[in-house]
């Protein structure tokens, strides 16, 4: 049995809306082991992205607790959670979220600079080379294709050798061939670095390639 890297216990998220209190996710329990590749699927509005954000410590649940990498992040303040994210967590988003005024290299260097890592430039160049963009280091996001942008985002996510990588619809904005390349890249990160991979997706082909699949419906985990 693998060591548990993420424990989600009785998580509920409620928000206020003009119609009253809205429950986004209800009573979720999950346990994810080190090196696992987990997909979370479900229809739009089922609470997938909210669950991902809470698991990553980007948002806090209304009820329940999260234990990420041995830290109970639901009791930590924002700065402590940031510290964990900066050191051990990587992110890949559907719309890439690259900083438009930074080159590919500078975008990848960001997490290293935030954590104060040495030899940031070399490490970032190396990460870009691993995603096949060694010739695009000085390109700016608007000079890259969608698939290339997502590869830069993956390089940025893995440059710190994170223990866990969260990907929110990583192929949602890409064509078929780019989707395939990005999926392969994510799985290769998992293989080569033993990084736990949690993917929120609509893409059932991608979901099926994962070891574990969870499905959300109306905020509840149905499998």
């Amino acid at each position, binding site marked *: 049995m693998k060591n548990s890297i993420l424990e989600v216990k009785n998580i509920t998220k409620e928000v206020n809306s003009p119609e009253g209190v809205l429950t986004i996710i209800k009573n979720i329990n999950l346990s994810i082991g080190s090196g696992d590749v987990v997909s979370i699927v479900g229809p739009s509005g089922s609470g997938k*992205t909210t669950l991902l954000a809470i698991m990553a410590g*980007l*948002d806090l649940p209304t009820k329940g607790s999260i234990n990420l990498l041995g830290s109970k992040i639901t009791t930590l303040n924002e*700065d402590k959670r940031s510290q964990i*994210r900066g050191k051990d967590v990587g992110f890949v988003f559907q719309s890439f*979220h690259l900083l438009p005024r930074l080159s590919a290299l*500078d975008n990848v260097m960001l997490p290293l600079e*935030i*954590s104060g890592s040495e030899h940031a430039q070399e490490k970032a160049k190396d990460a870009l080379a691993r995603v096949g963009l060694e010739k695009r280091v000085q390109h700016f996001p*608007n000079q890259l294709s969608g698939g290339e942008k997502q590869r830069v985002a993956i390089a940025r996510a893995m440059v710190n050798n994170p223990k866990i990588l969260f990907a929110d619809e990583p192929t949602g904005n890409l064509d078929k061939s780019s989707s395939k390349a990005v999926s392969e890249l994510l799985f290769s990160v998992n293989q080569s670095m033993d990084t736990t991979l949690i993917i929120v997706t609509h893409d059932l082909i991608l979901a099926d390639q994962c070891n574990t699949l969870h499905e959300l419906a109306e905020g509840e985990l149905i499998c």
Partner: protein
Amino acid sequence: MLKGFNHGLRKFWSDLTSGDLLILAFSIVLAVTAISGVSFLGDRLKSSIKQQASVVLAADLSFRSASDLGAQYLELAATQSLGVAETVSFLSMVIANEDNLLSSIKATTPSYPLRGKLVITDFNGQVIEHAGSPKRGYLWVEPKLVEQLGLEQNNEMAIGKATFIVEGILQDFPDRNVGFLAFSPTVIANINDLDVMGVIQTGSRVVYRNLFSGSENNIDEFLENIEPVPAEIRVQKIDGIGDQLGRTLDRSTRFFNLAGLFTIIIAAISSMIAARRYADRHLLNTSLMKVFGASKNFIVASQVTQLILMILIATSVGLFFGYLLQSILIGVLKDLLDAELPSASFKPIGIAFLTSFCLVFGAASPYLKLLGEAEPIRILRNDFQFKLKNNLAIYAVALFTLVVFLLLLFEDIFLVSSIMGAMIILASVLYVIGSLMVYLLSFFQSSSGIGWKLGLKNIVHRRSESVLQIVVFGLSLMFLMVLAETRTGLIDSWKETLSEDTPNYFFFNIQDYELPEIKAYLDQELDSATVFTPLIRGRLLSVQPKEGGLMKSGEMIDRESNLTWYDAIPDNNQVVEGSWWTDDAGSQMEVSIDSGIAASMGLSIGDQLNFAAGGTNFTAIVSNFREVTWESFAPNFFFVLSPELGRDLPQSFITSVKIPTDNNQVSKGFVERFPTVTSVDLNAALQQVRSIIGSASLAVQYIFILALIAGILTLIASVFSSADQRKKESAILHTLGAKRSKIFQSAAAEFLVLGLLSGFTAVFAATLFSGFLSTQVFDLNYKPNIFVLGLGFTVGVLSISIAGTLAIRKTIYTSPVVTLRNS
């Protein structure tokens, strides 16, 4: 097109409340608050100062002539709803209690004065009810006459062939005499008594004045109707009432204009930034509308409708705040100003709406054009960026519109064109300096942590935006510094010209043999070395230009003039052309002339002037022109002769001294001891000038404070606008593990460095610009005011840094999930 208008109307409220239009609306509210505040206050203060200055003429317009003006102008003015009055002034001996005194008789109509107040008391000091002239057969006299002739209530006094009853004491009156009438105490009589006096004969020296009052437009219209005014009539308006007040009015009006101009330019810059944000936020909407089949016209019509509605609402709100702001300031100012404040006019309302339209459409039209033209797919693919390089023509049109608007508004071609020209040059210089600074920054490696590193990197990575921000912040700061420096220079110069040491007494008609005794008396009583100036009564007969010929007519020719002679150039005089005579050239027969008079007579250095004085005729060669500080209240002369010419001419002496106002004994003792010397008490005239200048100084202070508040608010708003784009970056950094403190630090570092770069460029530009304005517009000497520049720099840098970090603060505390989802 009509569909576009309807769509714009339907979507207006939701767009306004969703924030897209709100940002632009907020910038307009702020701009209008600032502009209308300055405008409302400036307008009221200008009117108040003009009203005070009108007192010097006792009217808004005066016709002055040495011959009877008749009734034609008064009748015409009355038909044009102008207030009218008439005065006739001359010198005459008055006799009372078997004593006599040369007095200035002013015969007036009951409607006199049209501006200012007459204060008449009885001999017990009780103010008495009166019209603008005494009843026929009665007189009002100045206290000096009461004192010197030992007058009592209802004493008889003879003027010419008629005898009058002294009814009251003339404590104060508006149009204090200047020129030959100034040296004698004033008596006011009824104009209908002139004939019975029988003192005005052919050749008598008389000043006839027709006085008019009314709105500026009515006065101008009246003048237009009667033009050309005959050459022998001197037309005096409040803007041309002599050097001191004229310049005070001119300078304070120019300062108000400058403050208004700067406020509008800063508001324009802020609106440009807001317009860009508005366009950025409208990109997606526009592209979707295009996808759904909206034409370019539909989009433009919809946007224009929304902008017009927004302008109407935002301008009204801004006007309300602007009025409120000036009301608060007026409340404070009311007790300090020595004048009634007229109520606010409607002019600022028109200005505010016009400004809003110009600002919004000037700033937004390039973006509206681009929004209309952009291909929707590029916007939807997030592949569209505003590039205004190709739309320089539109910006040039917007700038041209702004210049035309400012010209119409301020009616000061020199001020507007020089400021706009200087601003364009300075903006270009600032752009180059900013680019260089940002370029140099890219070589700077910070070792003080990731916050600083990221902050500096942000500036370098956003190179073009950073440079633009440096230009914008730098220009705004520069305007505030320039305004502060100009205000300080202006007020200091006023203080200097009317300092406590300004002479308040003239003594003249002093003969050679009296000089030692009088000097000893004054030196001892006033504890200072009194300086005496020779006074020669003379007449300029003709001018022989260097090129030949003879000029026998002109303003100064054949008029009695006061001449003097000096060895060395006197204080308050500066040679502007030619050179002052030296000992070596002592044998030369030379004359030095006031540069203004020289220009009006068309004189050149080397021309020969023929004078008559003391029974002899002589010729003098023009050797230099002088600029004279007429407001110094020291004896000043149009013509100064070289010692060789003047020394031996028959002459008396004149001096001006400062006698403490609380010490009547000195002047009283002087008059008793030297009865043949004529003394002129300038205290009342000086007080009149001082009160106007005091009000102008106070007004300048308050306008400056208001413009400063407006400027700082607009600057802060610009900083807040630019912080908006950092939201997403901040959220990404947060997601990647950056602590809030680091993000905060990076924003603080970025704004601090931007503030420092803007501050440095502003100090540099302000020094150049203030120098230009002081010397070319305000006629002041310029020396950089280190305190003002230093304070401006510190306040500017702090405002930008604090406002910037505060603006980003909200973002830092917003969940990154929310920001990233919304983006």
